[in-house]
């Protein structure tokens, strides 16, 4: 079996990934017609390109069906429980930057920080009879962040898209979503909390601990590491605490 490298199958993320590897002497290209999801790697023997939706790459890494994968660090942290036990974040790639932030209506003049959000949530619950709702698709990351910062009396509501609109539509009071410039937040009359940065995400090359690391695949990994100018990642699971 070849060493399988999963990369995003379309859009800017795919192009930037190809550029990143290309700049390091590993040429990637899609093969077949432009609708066919297959690809090839030149410059390194024993490596097979697998084109996947960026959102599915964490799951494929977790199961070990791919050995390496490129996806957003936010997706790995949100979709994989105890992610350091499952994958190695081998190399941050310097593109695909997006911040996962908590945002509230700009007119909430009394809320700038998580402490304010917590106090506002308590008062909101007392006045409105339900917890303050935060719309997001990043459930694990947001919940862990709010728990760590002692915010209570909130509820997460799922929003898979157009999350900034949920507040105006009265399905949430606040949101947690990714933003790069803050433009969409402002257009929807929202503002970030000063200490509401949950994770600064970027495209990252991950290695799967659960993949089949045969001698041939380890050799391909070492060759790839040398070409990319990276240390060979340690794939044994970390000692859990």
């Amino acid at each position, binding site marked *: 079996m070849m060493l399988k490298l999963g990369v995003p199958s379309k859009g800017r993320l795919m192009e930037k990934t190809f550029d990143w590897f290309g700049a390091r002497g590993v040429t990637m290209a899609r093969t077949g017609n432009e609708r066919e999801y297959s690809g090839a790697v030149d410059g390194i023997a024993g490596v097979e390109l697998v084109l996947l939706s960026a959102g599915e790459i964490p799951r494929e890494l977790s199961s070990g069906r791919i050995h390496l994968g490129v996806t957003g660090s936010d997706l790995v942290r949100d979709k994989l*429980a*105890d992610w350091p*036990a499952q994958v190695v974040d081998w190399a941050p790639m310097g593109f695909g930057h997006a911040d996962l932030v908590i945002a509230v*209506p*700009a*007119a*909430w*003049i*009394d*809320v*700038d*920080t998580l*402490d*304010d959000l*917590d*106090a*506002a949530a*308590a*008062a*909101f619950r007392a*006045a*409105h009879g339900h*917890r*303050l709702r935060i719309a997001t698709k990043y*459930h*694990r990351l947001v*919940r*862990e962040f*709010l*728990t760590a910062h*002692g915010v*209570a*009396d*909130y*509820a*997460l509501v799922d929003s898979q898209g157009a999350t900034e609109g949920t*507040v*105006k539509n*009265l399905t*949430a*009071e*606040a949101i947690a979503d990714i933003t790069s410039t803050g433009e969409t937040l402002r257009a*929807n*009359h*929202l503002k970030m909390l*000063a*200490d509401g940065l949950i994770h600064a995400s970027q495209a990252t090359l991950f290695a799967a601990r659960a993949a089949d690391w045969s001698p041939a695949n380890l050799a391909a990994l070492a060759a790839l590491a040398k070409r990319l100018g990276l240390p060979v990642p340690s794939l044994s699971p970390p000692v*859990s*605490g």
Partner: protein
Amino acid sequence: MIPKATIRAEAERLHAAFVAAGAVPVEADILLPAETLLDLYGEDIRARAYITADPLNGEMMLRPDFTVPVVQAHMAHGADPARYAYMGEVFRRQEHLDGRAREYMQVGYEVFDRDAPAADAEVFSLFSGLLAGLGLRPATGDIGILMAAVRGLSTADRRKAALLRHVWRPQRFKALLDRFAGRAPVPAAQAALLQRLAADAPAALVAAAGPLVGLRSAEDIAARAEALLQDAKAPPIAAPEAALLYDLLSLEAPAGAALAHLRGIAPMLPAILPAVDAFAARLAALAARGIDVAALPFEASHGRTTLEYYDGFVFSFHGPAGLPPVASGGRYDALTAVLGAGRSIPAVGGIIRPGLVARLRGA
């Protein structure tokens, strides 16, 4: 691995002992409506319980503990007083592969009785007797004393409410107390916020900040802005009073000595007197049941976990390091009010993990 049959046999032995002590056996569903538990515990429970979707009934939760269904059943049609025993699996979602159990047996005993000190002592001494010979270390505490101390502070009600709301989150509680006591400086972000709030009437500031979207109303915002400005003017909690609370948070001593210490500070913090009297009555009831209260460990902060329902006596029994508590329990008077639709009854209870008992017996 201890065979499941061995664990079940141990569970049945414990359950029989609870029944012999006067408890009525009760059963609880495994699939519980998620809403009640979510409302009670908040979003944190999602990380600790398995939630599944029923196509017609919405979100359901695999029973994470028995207390809530047992209290609900009691509040709906229970006798007064009442004692219950139960046994069965509970399910705990884990976010780490560190060997913690996803499902395990619990055997429990719950007492709904208005004579609180006697009921506390009854539950603790029953557990202590059943677990004797396993070399366990007991730990006890009393969240009621801490809550009484907070209620007795000479500061604004809003500050007391904020502290009480975070009693079960020790770090957050400490941060709030540091701020209210003037031990931590006002954070820069809050200072800037206060300056802006002072500049104009809240309604004008809200209007200037852009169109208001969402359910949280201009009145909600104005009310909190006003509260913030008032709080900024309020003097810090007086140093001697704050010192007493810090002292209480770190109080760790054998129960007898802890009582003497609390009696010593009660004249300076008279609001804790009823709670200290209740503590004394409990110790007397424990002593009457043969517990050596002079040696019984006591920590005022014991039991302040995120399961927000213990509000009085709390206890646990610990085995070798690395093993979860073999047994734990406590008093949850407020929970019966929350689930009782207007009615409430003092309640105390606890659970034993028969799997851990069997493991220690086998070792």
